[in-house]
């Protein structure tokens, strides 16, 4: 079977569609002889979703995906197994390996809270990996950073940024959403009790890169915890 974890009801619908195509009874259908191509086509048909196969992954498709995933964390999208493809009004179209999964819809909705409807385009896990590889290849910077990426700073002097707490994604707000980009690019180092009331030497402050690295580690850890919690709840 090309896609694991397909609910039995979905599987039955798929084999029923294949049996109908062969004008036979589902009980007489030899499931072992169904090709992967036909299975995927029937799965797409029963889901009412178009299917993207390896040879459909072209520049225009990737351009559409890039337009919506540019500000998102590709590693997180890989974990959730979806890529946004298009957004029209309040409708989002996402490429997914498991469009029947309610959790997938919920996660996508939390990434795009302004979209009240999610429609799917089906893809096999293998082709999904290919899409991610091509997207990462097109934007290698994303491949290196799992969480938040500081935007390049202008050369002009900046006023001191107000101190903000780094936000940790909650269950309803996965990492990498556009709103996550409100993270400040510099986070002050913790103040030791002995130094309270004294002026901090500048050497003891974390650099912007170190602070970003710390925030990334936090976000990765938060993602793992979230995924673990989601798996348990399933």
């Amino acid at each position, binding site marked *: 079977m090309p896609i694991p974890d397909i609910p039995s009801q979905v599987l039955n619908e798929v084999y029923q*569609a294949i049996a109908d*195509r062969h004008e036979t009874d589902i009980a007489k259908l030899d499931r072992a002889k169904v*090709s992967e*191509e*036909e299975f*995927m*086509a*029937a799965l*797409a*048909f029963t889901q*009412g*979703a*178009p*299917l993207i*196969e390896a040879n*459909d992954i072209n520049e*225009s*498709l990737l*351009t*559409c995906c890039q337009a919506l995933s540019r500000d998102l964390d590709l590693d997180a999208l890989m974990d959730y197994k979806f890529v946004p*493809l*298009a957004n*029209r*009004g*309040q*409708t989002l*179209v996402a490429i997914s390996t498991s469009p029947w999964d309610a959790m997938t819809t919920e996660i996508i909705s939390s990434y795009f809270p302004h979209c*009240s*409807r999610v*429609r*799917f*385009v089906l893809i096999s896990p293998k082709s999904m990996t290919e899409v991610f590889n091509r997207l990462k290849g097109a934007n290698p910077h994303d491949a290196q950073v799992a969480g938040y990426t500081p935007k390049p700073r202008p050369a002009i002097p900046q006023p001191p940024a107000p101190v903000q707490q780094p936000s940790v994604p909650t269950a309803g707000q996965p990492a990498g959403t556009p709103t996550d980009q409100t993270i400040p690019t510099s986070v002050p180092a913790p103040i030791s009790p002995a130094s309270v009331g004294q002026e901090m030497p500048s050497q003891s402050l974390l650099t912007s890169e170190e602070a970003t690295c710390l925030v990334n580690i936090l976000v990765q850890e938060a993602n793992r915890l979230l995924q673990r919690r989601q798996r348990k709840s399933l």
Partner: protein
Amino acid sequence: MNTSTRKQFLELVQVFRLASEANKEALASDYRALVQRQAASLKPLTPILGFCMERAGSKERAEAIFNHVVQNCSITYWPCPEVPAHLRKGQPDLRAACFKHAIVPVKITDTLAVLCGTNPYDADGVRAVFKHVSGKNPFPIFVLSEPEKVLKALLQIE
């Protein structure tokens, strides 16, 4: 305009309340005249939705009309319709059906036929185009795209 096309037209107009009761008939008449001219000159027919979007008055309103249709139908939006290379030449019957119904085949394999159009109510059009690509009885899937993108894809069929 035949009964089926007229029904589709009125359904679309009704959906997004583009027209008042008074000018629905005038719009339908304008559309009929336009597609008759296009059919006579063997050009692709302007899709009903495209016609309505042109008459919307502003780009924003036209976008809103399309978004409304996408949101309220059960068909997936397809952002990049293109006709596969092997269907672009030497298929006059397919070309005629595609031009008439503003529907393009975007993926045709032995097992799957994905057709892209602009009108979620045009079951006749889907059947007419599918007839020309259904050699091995593929599973049919219909997707929706913007009229200008579909018209651009239509012109890929020579």
